[in-house]
């Protein structure tokens, strides 16, 4: 029921209304984003730990395998495995930065939810920008690598086989004794 005794109200779109009304909407959306960002950030840190661990294990295993006698002695296994380990560790460093940016984004969202201050909103936007930049660069690089690798594998299968020394490895493996 309409209240005929309430005071008149102006329809001015003043700053308080714009900021409170719409900024609440922004904060609500970011609050909904925060949980997922935290989840991905935690997973990213777990992946970082696994990548570092894998890299270290590969380095140790590579050193051990190089020292052991076997059909692989003539192959440059040490440098190959060390190279693989370095790739794992480099990926770990990149993912670490991605996780840090996501954690900072989540932290800025939490501050924004608490204070509703423009500084926190600006900080949140800056952190998500850094994340998107890093992710895009990694995505460009990985897409280029996968496209080049697929093209080489299709167009030059012999080159891949010789790069991996598959034929040499197969030739070096002694045949099983006949029973």
């Amino acid at each position, binding site marked *: 029921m309409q209240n005929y005794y309430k005071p008149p109200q102006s329809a001015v779109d003043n*700053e308080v209304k714009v900021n409170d009304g*719409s900024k609440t909407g922004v904060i609500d959306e970011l609050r909904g984003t925060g949980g997922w960002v935290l989840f991905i950030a935690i997973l990213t840190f777990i992946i970082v730990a696994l990548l570092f661990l894998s890299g270290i294990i590969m380095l140790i295993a590579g050193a051990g395998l190089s020292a052991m006698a076997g059909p692989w002695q003539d192959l440059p296994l040490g440098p190959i495995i060390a190279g693989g380990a370095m790739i794992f560790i480099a990926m770990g460093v990149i993912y670490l930065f991605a996780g840090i940016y996501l954690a900072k984004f989540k932290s800025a969202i939490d501050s924004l939810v608490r204070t509703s201050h423009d500084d926190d909103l600006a900080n949140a936007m*800056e952190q998500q920008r850094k994340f998107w*930049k890093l992710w*895009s660069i990694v995505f*460009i690089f990985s897409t280029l690598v996968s496209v080049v690798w697929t093209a080489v594998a299709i167009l030059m299968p012999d080159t891949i086989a010789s790069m991996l020394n598959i034929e040499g490895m197969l030739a070096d493996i002694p045949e099983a004794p006949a029973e």
Partner: protein
Amino acid sequence: MQNQYAPPQSQVADVHQNTGGVDDRVMDSLRRTRLWTQITSILFFVTAGITVITVAAMLLGNKLLGGNSTPEMVGALASNLLSLGFECLFGVLIFKYSANIARLMQTGSMQDLVLAMRAQRLFWKMFGIFILLMIGLIVLLFIGGIVFAVAVGAGAAM
């Protein structure tokens, strides 16, 4: 120092250069975000294209080899199609985020900032669901592998 003789000022939105209350630093960050989100969106579509080629090659190869649908073939095809679906979905969601940022840059209104943040929230939600799904699949495969190994071991012992 406060000017005691300054005329009274109203808190209307139009004194803030048509930005409708959106902070300039927010506008600047999002302007610089847009380039990267556009690239990411395009790359998701490129990846989806590569997946389509992979699926086509798998189907062609299978046809050339006699057209027998082995469980491995069906599994690989299903996982590729699932990837394709999510790649297209992520591409569309990030494209929407970029488009909303572009609209925000034109209008400078807080409502468009809300829409941009909504698009971003939807992307993170879908990405999180995708990751949960992948974790669930890995756990299922791991359990399936253990059950299979135990069954094979039990069969060999008998």
